[in-house]
């Protein structure tokens, strides 16, 4: 068996640069096929004679392979490694094959050759561009129930995978002096030149190997060697230097501000069995001092009837398949062109033994050297002719040719048709950089015009024609001292045509495709103009020309030219749609990268976390913190556990982890003055060793945060904040200290994570901690409620706070975080025989609600003043300034009718209100009712033997004793308005 049959019947012996011995097995729609290592799916399928690879988006027309690169609009396939590693809409021209690769065609049912959806093609006169905007308008209800679900099911090409992606993705930041995008002849030369100066260079190319057009150009000689050899030697030279990084299979997809460029490097998509720890892709975020764009040009197709038949493809693609992969795209290959570059493909194919029945050239007098060369090889050249239609269905079978100026039609049998309408400079990244493109009228193309960043374009993307000129330009752009190198051969990027070819003009109704991926034909673009779309942005959205995964790389200029012709306006006046990132599709995996699962957001655990976990605690998330929620014992549900914890605190004592509270050390000669300005309370006269509950407002007068503040020395305060508020309070303090009150001599330090905080609360709290404390007199007289002392506990330094968030006498023991768990365990061991019970955040919430203590963010919502919350007592009466003082004087904040915090008792004590439930005065009024408030906190209180609730109610403090109503789906709940304190109203227990 010859190697040719091993890797496909269309493999030409001696052609291409793949190694015939290295075969690879893969499947296409379940069919076992063999290709060569280095093949793309496209080249391997073509080698096996397969042109039909998919069905089109709207009409379900058979589609083949148009290109050999990332611009491919047609050949989109589904790749599956396993259930979770499956990707739809992969370009067959980009995906390399590997042993075991499973490829499936898309958008067909039941099979690729017999597709039911293809009836759309017959009914296409009823499905013009924009049909769904007009057709699915009535009856109104049908949109949601019938039209939208059906359209959604029919839309799209691939099928999304059903399981979470198990691949890994990595991320790298890099800086360089010069980033070169594209490793064709221009990029290689620029990189070589830049690297020779000692600059740090990064060179990237989306292909598996460098070379660009040199990979298929057969006539190029640079510096005395063949073009592709020069490319390989140059890459080897660059890789030997330590100041340059060469990245292949790496796409520069986005060009952002200040030369920040995003790259995706594909690491394992071409490997049969990638190592388990190997990332699939790597996201590069590069900051470059200078960017050299060497992004080349993209060949355009000819716009004629049935130009989408499988086997109709770009001339440069046919050349790439032959010269790189050794694959003939057909045996009788017709050529249709409007410029010179298709001739090179025809000549290469002819020399490889492929029949070229005819070259059809729309130009009247093509007379360059290459045309003569084609003629001298015996190829018939029909100048001034056009292909009016391609025959065949699942594979092109013929081309119908007529003279452009009228005459008889001639039909020529072919099994492939290669075409070129000319080249479109790839200005995508330049445009993304906010550079302004300029219209080159002579050559009908957009080129880089005004640059917005430190960036330069070289080679084909800059419209530079000729190999020598490109090399000279690129070497100069790299800044190196060594001059350019001599070169001959290569393509010509100018010439050709844009818009519809003869036979697909405004007077015709043929299906001449402009955008293959979106099934947009030339007549669709004209229809859009007739329907009143005069801006190219509107034409694009009406027809969907240039949308989806290829973003119109082959179609945009054609669409623009046809619209401009229909509008009878010059092309630059019609404008160009905006190029946006990404250049080619980027996986969510690369963008999301490591930020998944545990790495999505940091998890913060207190020093005593492992103890809580060992006790079987359930945790709740509070911001990034994990807090012990309750500690269920055997057989207990949450309700039972919380009730037990609440009762234990009031009858004996409880131990609670308060380490998550924000803590800020405020130090300096002006520390008290600073707190006077940041809190509503007075601080100057607070004695050393005393605590005070402080309220912080925003400038608008609403409560921002609260917490207990201890004065440790004249110039030193230990400030606590809410758990969730710690970062913003620190920011708020820093803001005022730095920008409004910079004259104050104060230092702020966040100490949240320096201190572990162990709250011991309840009638036995003092008895429990007494034997553990050294150097502090903790008697009620020496250390009353709301005081702080420094000393030792369990031999460890402590800031001992006598304070309470439960209404019981109690302490908050601050110890350095590393000692937290040891001190906690010592306290617990000492207290356990006395009934000391660990309690979690749920019990803490209930205990504080029994006492009417607010939680900022639960009982307040950013529109609540201290007066509304019943905290007028916490405002320093004689103060002349603090943040929020003026806001509190605003008319609406002092007017009647504000919502005020009150207690609610349900008339039926067993009913627990729902937090957030709305409150009305009259439950019999018609809907919508006038709502006068809402429930902010609501619990079952085992200590009170009934439900309790806090609520914000309009003029609430004037309504004490009133009956109000809470309408719920299952009936109206009757409630009585009460004060906010449900337990130990006189507060005697605090001083116990």
């Amino acid at each position, binding site marked *: 068996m010859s190697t040719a049959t091993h890797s496909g019947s269309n493999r030409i012996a001696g052609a291409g640069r793949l190694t015939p011995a290295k075969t690879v097995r893969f499947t296409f729609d379940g069919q076992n096929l063999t290709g060569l290592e280095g093949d793309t799916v496209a080249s391997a399928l073509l080698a096996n004679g397969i042109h039909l690879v998919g069905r089109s988006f709207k009409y379900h027309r058979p589609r083949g392979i148009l290109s050999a690169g990332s611009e491919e609009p047609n050949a989109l396939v589904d790749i599956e490694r396993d259930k979770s590693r499956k990707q739809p809409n992969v370009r067959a021209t980009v995906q390399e094959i590997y042993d075991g690769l499973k490829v499936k065609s898309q958008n067909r049912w039941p099979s690729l050759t017999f597709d039911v959806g293809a009836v759309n093609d017959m009914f296409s006169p009823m499905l013009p561009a924009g049909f769904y905007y007009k057709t699915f308008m009535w009856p109104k209800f049908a949109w949601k129930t019938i039209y939208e679900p059906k359209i959604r099911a029919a839309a799209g090409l691939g099928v999304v995978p059903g399981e979470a992606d198990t691949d890994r993705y990595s991320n790298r930041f890099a800086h360089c002096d010069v980033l070169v995008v594209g490793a064709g002849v221009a990029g290689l030369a620029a990189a070589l030149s830049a690297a020779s100066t000692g600059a740090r260079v990064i060179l990237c190319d989306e292909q598996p190997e460098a070379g660009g057009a040199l990979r298929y150009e057969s006539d190029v000689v640079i510096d005395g060697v063949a073009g592709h050899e020069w490319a390989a030697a140059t890459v080897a030279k660059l890789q030997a230097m330590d100041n340059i990084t060469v990245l292949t299979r790496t796409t520069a997809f986005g060009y*952002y*501000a*200040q030369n*920040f460029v995003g790259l995706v490097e594909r690491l394992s998509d071409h490997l049969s069995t990638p190592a388990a720890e190997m990332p699939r892709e790597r996201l590069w*975020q590069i*900051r470059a001092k200078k960017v050299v764009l060497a992004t080349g040009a993209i060949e355009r197709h000819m716009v004629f009837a049935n130009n989408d038949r499988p086997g109709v493809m770009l001339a440069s693609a046919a050349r790439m398949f032959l010269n790189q992969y050794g694959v003939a795209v057909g045996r009788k290959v017709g050529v249709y062109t409007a410029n010179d570059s298709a001739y090179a493909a025809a000549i290469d194919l002819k020399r490889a033994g492929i029949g070229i029945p005819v070259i059809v050239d729309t130009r009247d007098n093509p007379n360059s050297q290459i045309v003569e060369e084609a003629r001298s090889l015996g190829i018939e050249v029909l100048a001034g002719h056009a292909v009016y239609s391609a025959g065949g269905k699942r594979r092109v079978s013929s081309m119908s040719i007529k003279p452009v100026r009228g005459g008889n039609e001639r039909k020529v049998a072919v099994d492939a048709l290669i075409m070129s309408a000319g080249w479109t400079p790839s200005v995508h990244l330049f445009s993304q950089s*906010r550079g302004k493109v300029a219209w080159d009228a002579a050559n009908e193309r957009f080129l880089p015009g005004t640059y*917005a960043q430190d960036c330069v374009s070289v080679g084909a993307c800059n419209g530079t024609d000729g190999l020598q000129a490109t090399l000279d330009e690129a070497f100069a752009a790299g800044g190196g001292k060594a001059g350019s190198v001599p070169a001959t051969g290569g393509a010509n990027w100018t010439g050709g045509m844009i818009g519809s070819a003869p036979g697909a003009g405004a007077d015709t109704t043929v299906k001449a495709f402009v955008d293959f991926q979106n099934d947009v034909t030339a007549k669709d673009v004209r229809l859009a103009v007739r329907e009143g779309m005069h801006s190219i942005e509107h034409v694009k959205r009406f027809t969907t020309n240039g949308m989806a995964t290829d973003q119109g790389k082959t179609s945009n200029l054609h669409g623009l030219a046809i619209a401009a012709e229909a509008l009878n306006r010059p092309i630059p006046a019609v404008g160009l749609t905006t190029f946006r990132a990404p250049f080619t599709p980027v996986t969510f995996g690369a963008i999301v990268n490591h930020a998944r699962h545990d790495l999505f957001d940091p998890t913060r655990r207190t020093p005593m976390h492992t103890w809580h976990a060992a006790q079987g605690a359930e945790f709740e998330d509070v911001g990034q913190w994990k807090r012990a929620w309750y500690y269920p014992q055997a057989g207990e549900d949450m309700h039972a556990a919380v009730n037990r914890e609440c009762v234990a605190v009031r009858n004996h004592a409880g131990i609670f982890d308060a380490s998550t509270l924000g803590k800020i050390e405020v130090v300096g000669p002006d520390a008290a003055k600073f707190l006077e300005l940041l809190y509503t309370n007075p601080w100057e006269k607070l004695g050393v060793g005393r605590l005070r509950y402080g309220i912080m407002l925003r*400038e*608008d007068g609403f409560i921002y945060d609260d917490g207990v503040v201890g004065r440790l020395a004249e110039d030193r305060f230990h400030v606590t904040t809410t758990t969730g508020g710690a970062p913003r309070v620190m*920011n708020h303090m*820093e*803001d005022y200290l*730095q*920008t*409004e009150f*910079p004259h104050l001599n104060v230092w702020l330090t966040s100490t949240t994570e320096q201190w572990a905080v162990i709250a011991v609360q309840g009638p036995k709290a003092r008895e429990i901690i007494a034997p553990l404390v050294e150097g502090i007199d903790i008697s009620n007289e020496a250390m009353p409620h709301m005081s702080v002392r420094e000393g030792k506990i369990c031999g460890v330094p402590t800031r001992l706070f006598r304070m309470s968030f439960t209404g019981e006498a109690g302490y908050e023991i601050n110890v350095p975080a590393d000692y937290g768990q040891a001190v906690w365990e010592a306290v617990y061991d000492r207290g356990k025989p006395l009934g000391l019970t660990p309690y979690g955040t749920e019990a803490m919430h209930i205990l504080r609600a029994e006492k009417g203590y607010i939680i900022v963010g639960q009982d307040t919502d950013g529109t609540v003043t201290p007066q509304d919350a019943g905290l007028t007592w916490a405002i320093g009466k004689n103060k*002349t*300034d603090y943040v929020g*003082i*003026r*806001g509190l*004087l*605003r*008319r609406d904040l002092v007017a009647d009718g504000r919502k005020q915090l009150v207690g609610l008792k349900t008339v039926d004590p067993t009913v627990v209100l729902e937090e957030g439930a709305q409150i009305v005065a009259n439950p019999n009024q018609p809907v919508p009712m006038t709502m006068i408030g809402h429930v902010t906190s609501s619990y079952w209180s085992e200590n009170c033997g009934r439900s309790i609730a806090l609520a914000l109610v309009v003029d609430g403090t004037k309504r004490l004793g009133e009956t109000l109503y809470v309408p719920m789906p299952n009936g109206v709940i009757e409630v009585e308005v009460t004060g906010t304190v449900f337990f130990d109203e006189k507060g005697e227990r605090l001083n116990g």
Partner: protein
Amino acid sequence: MLLIKCPYCEEERPELEFRNAGEAHLVRAASIVEQSDDDFAAFLYFRQNPKGLQFERWRHIHGCGRFFNAVRDSVSDKFLTVYKADEPRPNVEQLIVRPAASAESTEEPDAKRAPRAKKAEV
């Protein structure tokens, strides 16, 4: 991602290290209690949000922690300058690098794009 120069660290650092802190040069009155409702409303609520050059505050929150001011073009995202919190408002006219006159330029004259002075400052 922008590069922002911190005037305290005196170097350019990535945008990730910074947090925008709203409009700059808002003046909190020394005797704020006596401020009229209108003046207080202007201070509390009214912002310029210009298309073009704007004076704004940034905090180098994941760096030195300092608040500073910057002049940034809200159209191009380009920073004209940065300066410390206690430094006066720079003269924008001197900072603008005028591009060569272009017939196709549709941009508004620079004078129009410079922000007006705040009410509290007049």
